[in-house]
């Protein structure tokens, strides 16, 4: 199930920043990771992903570089220091939202939530 557009607008950038936290990735890799690690929930079309990447780069949260390492050039994205700070801030905010949702009975228990969300656990 895919999330609504408005929700995706808030969750998408955080998810991308989280994926780039440990290693740099190129566009298609990000698309695949987002889809597989979120169980398809955060899968987004490339028409959404690339503008998001450019916007994050414009804000200085990520940085891109062209590399010719794998037979052909690919554009790799990595997190900047500013992006790490933003990710930490956004993560904290999302945790509060999740706690609030749990308190309202909308989300599951914290234990269940942490186990069921691939991005929070075994992303590496």
């Amino acid at each position: 199930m895919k999330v609504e557009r408005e929700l995706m607008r808030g969750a998408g950038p955080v998810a991308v920043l989280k994926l780039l936290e440990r290693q740099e990735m190129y566009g298609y890799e990000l698309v695949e990771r987002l889809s597989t690690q979120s169980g398809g929930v955060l899968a987004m079309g490339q028409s959404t992903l690339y503008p998001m990447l450019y916007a994050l780069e414009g804000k200085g949260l990520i940085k891109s570089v062209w590399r010719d390492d794998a037979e052909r050039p690919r554009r790799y994205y990595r997190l900047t220091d500013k992006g790490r700070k933003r990710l930490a801030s956004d993560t904290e905010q999302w945790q509060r939202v999740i706690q609030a949702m749990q308190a309202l009975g909308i989300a599951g228990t914290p234990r269940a939530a942490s186990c069921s969300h691939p991005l929070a656990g075994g992303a590496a």
Partner: protein
Amino acid sequence: MNNEPTSDRPSPGVVHLAHTTPLSDAIQGRLTGRLDIALACDRAGLPPSIRELVLQTAQATRLWRVERADVAHELIAHFRDGIEAGRTPDELIAAFGESLVAARLIRRAKKQSRPLSWKLWILLWKSIGALLVLSILLYLILFIRYHTGSPVVKVNPIATLNAPALSIPTEERAWNRYKLAISAYTKPHDDLMLPGAQWPHIPADSPYRDLALATLEANRPALEHVHAAAAMPRSATSSASRSNQTLPGPIMAVKSRRSMTPIGPTTRPRSASCSPRSESSESSRISSCSTRCSRESNTTPHVWL
């Protein structure tokens, strides 16, 4: 849909490559032709449907040439990765979404990444444009108003000026009495105007003294009016009562000088005017004469005007 890779395009010439090579590559001595998106698609061996999608998206962004090529190369890499991962072109196109939507979003995001100097430059031109439009609009409004409207007097400044004077009760308006005094004023005899008469400083033994006293006597009614006017608290000067004026003239409400101190023989003459400076000199003359009258009984030797 024909999804076979196409590479039947002839190799580009040096001139074309030079024309489509960004300056950064040219400086390094490489003719990459990186700005030619179609060439990049051909070199990548993309299926025609994907090639078309990439070209369409890149063109629709309406970005700078270098930015457009950058986006196109990334999309080419993306689709090549997808094909290598075993996805069909149709699947990749479907997963990509609307190309025009993507182009619009990419354009918006890329413009945010442009240098501050460019943003300031655009802001400057937009401001100039807005100012120009506003000026033209304002000019048009004023032009239409000038040619279609007619002036309407909404404020009567004379009425505003008159208001303080009109608020004074009629019986307290000194100016009415001054006007009566002016009407009753009699000019001095012509002989008094002769240099030898020393008018108005007439000595007690002057042959013109009787003539001067007669003049003063003739002006007694006027002087009485002046006295009465001077006793009033305010002048309420108005020329609005002039019958030959359509609009009332300036009206001044001033406090009249009540200190009509009798003038002694050696004191300098003071202005005995009970009205402002703009009032006629006739009234001041009469006022001075009133002083003279008040002192007749004291047989003062000089009359100061």
